[in-house]
Structures are given as structure tokens and as C-alpha cells.
């Protein structure tokens, strides 16, 4: 007897949560984008400050990694039309596909630049400071680039998507 495999795309689609069209106002979304990256920078600064105290390197790196995971879950795991960069083509219409492709195109240059600068600085940090401070600086840079890689296209869609259309009066 053939057993149904739950990982098959057709079967996986049965369990997929519906895509939400609720997108929030553009002003709210732009504030959210700024707040997200500001929160990450603040966390990186806190971790750097804590590194001068008695906290061991492993706890500081766990703090940085968990910050990244929380932000990435908030931005990537939702299923709204703002999250088009994380959705498959079959769930998107032509406008959303265009919006997603434009976001990837826009994200490519700043991400490539950030990745290059991050790699150079991380290499310099580990070479010039072969101690826990150097490794921490390197880790922070790596986490910053990793966060841009996963959240930047979605943040660009959130920034650009127009205000949602007004709700229609309920038909009775």
C-alpha cells in the first residue's frame, strides 16, 4: 500500500494557512520597518556593551542569534501579501509577482554591498583582534548580513505597497 507523504507539495498545500490580504496602512508599515532595523542595531549595541562585562562569549552570541531569529520569524513567517518574497508563485497574482521581483531587484545591490563590507570588516576584526572581542564583532557583522538577506526584500515590499483599499460596506 502506498503511503501518502506529508512533504509532497500537493499535500502540503492542503495544510497551508490562507493568505491574508490585511496589510495595514503604509505609514504603519514604514514605521515597523524603521523600528525593526533600529531594534536590531540597538540590540547589537547592547551586546557589544555587555561584552565588556563578565558575560561569556557564548551567552552574547546566543543573545544575538535569538534577536535575529525573532526578527526573522516576525518578518518572514507571516502569510500576508506583504510577505510575497517568501511565498510561491501559485499564491500570487501578476501584481504581487511584479512587486516581489522589484523588491528582490532593489534588495540585491544594498545586500551585495553590505555582504562585501561585512566580510571585509569581519575578516579584519578576526585578524586584528584574535580574541573574544574580535570574534564577537565578526559575529555581529555576520548576523547583520544574515538579517538583511532574509528580511530586506520583505521590508522593501512593506515600504512600497500602497495603502490598502477601503473596506466595502457589508451587503445585506
Amino acid at each position, binding site marked *: 500500500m502506498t503511503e501518502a507523504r506529508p512533504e509532497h507539495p500537493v499535500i502540503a498545500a492542503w495544510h497551508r494557512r490562507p493568505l491574508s490580504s490585511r496589510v495595514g496602512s503604509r505609514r504603519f508599515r514604514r514605521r515597523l520597518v524603521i523600528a525593526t532595523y533600529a531594534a536590531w542595531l540597538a540590540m547589537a549595541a547592547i551586546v557589544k556593551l555587555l561584552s565588556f562585562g563578565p558575560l561569556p562569549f557564548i551567552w552574547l552570541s546566543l543573545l544575538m542569534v535569538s534577536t535575529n531569529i525573532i526578527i526573522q520569524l516576525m518578518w518572514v513567517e507571516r502569510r500576508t*501579501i506583504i510577505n510575497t518574497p517568501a511565498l510561491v508563485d501559485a499564491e500570487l497574482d501578476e501584481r504581487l509577482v511584479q512587486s516581489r521581483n522589484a523588491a528582490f531587484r532593489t534588495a540585491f545591490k544594498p545586500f551585495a554591498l553590505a555582504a562585501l563590507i561585512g566580510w571585509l570588516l569581519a575578516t579584519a576584526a578576526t585578524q586584528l583582534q584574535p580574541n573574544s572581542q574580535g570574534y564577537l564583532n565578526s559575529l555581529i557583522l555576520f548576523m547583520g548580513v544574515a538579517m538583511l538577506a532574509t528580511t530586506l526584500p520583505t521590508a522593501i515590499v512593506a515600504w512600497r505597497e500602497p495603502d490598502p483599499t477601503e473596506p466595502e460596506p457589508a451587503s445585506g
Partner: protein
Amino acid sequence: MAPSILNRIGVLRAERGLSRQQLADAVGINYQTVGYLERGDYNPSLELAFRIAEYFGLPLEAVFSRQPFAPMSSQLYGKEESA
């Protein structure tokens, strides 16, 4: 910026008592996309424009135009008077 394409989707939808969701389901697009089309925030592809026109049973130029539309009532009664 690309010149905007004007459309009568909102009027036609209201005339037929369709919700945005019903039209979106019928032509296979997202609910918000219908709103953006009506508001002029998005210009449809030729394929989508044809699908919408076919759904309403009208020629393409009756639904989409690059020039402002004359009111439907004046077009309708204007023709009747001249005939």
C-alpha cells in the same frame, strides 16, 4: 513613471452588485489588487485587462482607456438622441 490606464471597473462592479472579492475570485487575482486597479495604483497586463473585459462581457475599450471616460449615461443617451 508609466502613463496611467483609466478604467471603469468600479462602476461596472457596482452596476452588477459585485464585491471586490467576487471579482477577484472570478478573474484570479488578489482582493487588494482589484482595489488598486480601481484606484489607479496599478496598471494591469494586457492578459488581465482582457480577462476583466471578458468577465464583464464588454470590449476592452469599454473598460480601459488612456483618456478620461465620458460618463456612461451621457454616452448612452447622447447616442440615442443623435440616432
